[in-house]
């Protein structure tokens, strides 16, 4: 039986996108200052 796809609410999408954008904003700043390879996600 095919699993039913759960539709995300508009609010879930908003918070998911916000979190994604702010994480990117933080990581871009780290990369700009510390250089590539210094992001902790990669350490």
């Amino acid at each position, binding site marked *: 039986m095919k699993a039913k796809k759960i539709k995300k609410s508009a609010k879930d999408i908003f918070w998911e996108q916000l979190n994604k954008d702010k994480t990117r904003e*933080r990581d871009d*700043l780290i990369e700009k200052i510390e250089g590539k390879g210094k992001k*902790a996600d990669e350490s």
Partner: protein
Amino acid sequence: MTLSRQLADLTSGGSTTLATLDDIGDVNLTGLEDGKVIYRDGDDNLWKSAWANPKDPVADLRDFMDARYGAGVWTARTGVGTGSDIGPAIDDACDAIRARYGSGEVRIVPNGLWLMTTPPTPSKLSGNTIAGVGPSHRSNIVFNNANGIMFHWNGAGGFTNGGLKNLTLFCESNLGNSTSTAVLLQGDASFQPDQFMIENIYCTSLAANAYWYNGCLLNGGLRTAPQGLRVGCVNNYQQFNCRNFAFGFYNLVQWTMENIGSYTGTGSGNNIYIGGGGTASTNTVQLSIDGLICSGDLNLTNASRVYIQGSTNTLSTDTSFTTSWLDIDHNGIGGALAGSVYTRFL
């Protein structure tokens, strides 16, 4: 050329040659760094050089780094946890300002990354403003201290006023789960750092897995007469990477805030707390916030006459939060709302 003629030339918008000034013999121009200026030190009756006039109420941090470590000796942050500690030099600058003016401003010029290992002394900071060149990502300070409070104003000696503005504050990249707090305004039963301005602060971490414990805590809880931490504003403060809470506002009286947000925390690190001690003289009152973004839980207790417009992931309240206005987009609410709280929820 005489000194008086040289000064006349300068004051009329003209110029004089450094070589001739050197001939006067009371200022050493050898090795004078590019950008430094000459000022008259009346105490020593000498001409001296500095980044800015250190007798002005606006001090340049570099002058006090020169004085403490030696010109050309100190460095900005050159690597993880390495560089000259700016904390003691900020203390020196505050001492100089205090002696001459009572209160003033310490200017943090853009210089790559400054390193702070020793936090400035709260009683010295009180009354003074720490200011970068804004709005953000220009003047940067890395806090290399796993269990300290980076900036703590306590209003000691009755020195109210002060501020923190135009700065990017980083948690050092190797601190992991620190117990450090970035900004604290908290005095005692007699003095609080009233009349305060926080503006254009981007507080984050130099590694995604390094965390502040708390971001910004404003706590007037220890004073009941006059009540609380009184009169201030917070504008454009973005708080990242906390693991306990991003913002805590307790026993604030008459504050306004605009565009503040919490992001990328772990555990309860995205939470924002507004509250107080549970009595009329210890609860927050007259707080207005526009443009709030709380990526965690916005927790509202022990406060009244609070206006909030913004978005929060979840909202927690109880009936000790009264007589207020909430214009909030939330993704879930818990707790009871007092009947005197007017809401427009999305």
